[in-house]
């Protein structure tokens, strides 16, 4: 009897013994997982390295001052000018149009879904909005060029007697706004729904209506999240490519008028990539300088969003 017990004890203690192979395997796996996580940092470093290294060559040819102040963008002509303002104006105007659509509509939808809508409607509307965000942007571009632009042309002609050009920033911007609505509404709504119920109950107890509660209590409390949603919308608008490449034309045009055609930073990159520029030429480097500008703008907005969130974050 006692010998059996002793035998069992040795078997158990053998099993409990720390096995080197098991330890090594754990270590190897942990290292592999760590390297996978670290890989994302290398992607960022890769982006920064590629954009900077090509842009530095570009800025040896073109001075930063000219790049920022020149009012012409003709990199492929003999008389070459590199004024990024030309492309930037297209980007800013189209983004402004898009945000003028997306921010009011997206915020209204968010407040409505979070504070007003019955449960069943919310269950249907949220996935639907997600689907809207999943439509490929080239399809939106097709829609802007072949549906929205003709409709706008008809409206402009009958109402104002104005001949709207076939490519314009307005139509691209409007469709881009629709595309951005789901981003704005879903992030804002999540922020509003994370406001604790007790705050709403306090407001109702004071006799406030739903609308007053939504606008004066919930929205300020969720401000950091809503600001993050707007920033996300801005980033999307500035970086959007295909809608503009299809519907806004690819002609560089320094304008603040959304009724005109103009190229954006992103559309210019597409235009150059569609052509056949030799690797290492100045034309090839311009797209990296343009990309660097784009990256700095979106990075700036992302940092702003981060700061806003930090400043206005309320902990419950």
């Amino acid at each position: 009897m006692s010998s059996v017990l002793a035998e069992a004890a040795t078997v158990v203690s053998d099993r409990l013994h720390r096995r080197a192979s098991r330890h090594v395997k754990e270590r190897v796996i942990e290292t592999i997982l760590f390297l996978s996580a670290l890989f994302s940092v290398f992607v960022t470093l890769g982006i920064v390295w590629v954009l900077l290294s090509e842009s530095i060559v570009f800025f040896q040819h073109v001075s930063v001052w000219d790049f920022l102040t020149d009012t012409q963008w003709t990199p492929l002509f003999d008389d070459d000018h590199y004024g990024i303002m030309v492309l930037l104006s297209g980007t800013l105007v189209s983004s402004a149009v898009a945000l003028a659509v997306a921010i009011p509509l997206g915020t209204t939808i968010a407040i409505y879904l979070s504070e007003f809508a019955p449960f069943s409607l919310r269950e249907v509307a949220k996935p639907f909005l997600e689907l809207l965000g999943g439509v490929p942007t080239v399809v939106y571009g097709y829609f802007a060029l072949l549906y929205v632009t003709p409709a706008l042309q008809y409206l402009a002609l009958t109402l104002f007697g104005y001949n709207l050009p076939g490519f314009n920033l307005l139509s691209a911007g409007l469709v881009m706004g629709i595309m951005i609505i789901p981003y704005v509404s879903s992030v804002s709504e999540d922020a509003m729904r994370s406001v604790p119920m007790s705050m709403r109950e306090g407001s109702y107890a004071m006799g406030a209506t739903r609308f007053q509660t939504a606008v004066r209590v919930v929205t300020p409390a969720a401000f950091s999240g809503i600001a993050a949603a707007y920033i996300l919308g801005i980033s999307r608008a500035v970086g959007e490519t295909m809608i503009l490449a299809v519907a806004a034309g690819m002609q560089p045009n320094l304008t603040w008028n959304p009724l005109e055609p103009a190229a954006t930073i992103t559309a210019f990159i597409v235009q150059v990539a569609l052509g056949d520029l030799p690797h290492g030429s100045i034309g090839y480097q311009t797209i990296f300088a343009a990309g660097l500008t784009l990256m700095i703008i979106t990075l700036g907005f992302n940092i702003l969003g981060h700061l806003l969130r930090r400043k206005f974050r309320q902990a419950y």
Partner: protein
Amino acid sequence: MLKQDVSEIRALIIKHKRRDLIFALCGLLALMVGVLTFAVLFIGMVIDGLPRISWEFFTHFPSRRAEHAGILSAWVGTTLVMLVTAVAAIPVGVAAAVYLEEYAPKNILTDIIEINVTNLAGVPSIVYGLLALGLFVYAFGFGQSILSAGLTLALLILPVVIVATREAIRAIPGAIREGAYALGATKWQTTADHILPYSAPGIMTGIIIGMARAIGETAPVITIGALTFIAFLPAPPVKGEFPFLNFEWLFSGFTVMPIQMFNWTSRPEAAFHQNAAAAGLVLVVMTLSMNAVAIYIRYRLRKNIKW
């Protein structure tokens, strides 16, 4: 006097209730803008594109004559590019998420990785195209190939996969881990045998949404120099003799569905616009059904699993 006060208050209540109603209507209206736009977009594409969709449309190469043009090279290209993207993005993305959720110590390096993933999700897609142009196409010498495009889109959807996987893992209660540890399982045994299987539906959702996004991405693929007119197919990945696999296709030139659609949209002839509508219809049905599957999985998950 008191009576007057009460009626004033009543009037105020009515006024405010009316505002509630007006806002609710505005909310519905705003929602309808989205719904209607999508309806017009989809129905318009069906009307314009459906007559063009036939067996020939899927088995013909693009052509100068609109009525003979098809999307053979485009859908084959999309399939092969997606294959590369899936093989590259899924293991790295899931591994990174597992590390961040289960293994990562609380230190500066972990913070940097986390902030970095968030930032990568906000980088415009065309910047990934520039990265790939400088790195994959020229520095690594992959050329303007299926391999370059697949890897580019893999980098693009990496943050999507990481974020979704992390959320799925985070939803698993700590008791599961404690149970496994109590029975003497190692960290990796716990992860591989418990955490990953239980979070699989959530991970699947993230992967499907990421792949749906990759299928529709146009800008980065144009930037690395995908061709818009391709009338050949890459070498088949399977061959008759040993070792039966053929990797030449990885370095082949290619086009993908959204680029084919872009090409047809930017032509002036209306006949090509019909082709664009048909290609767009195929593309939208593909991405939307993938998204719908993902949403459905998540819905069932939320409904059925109670820890």
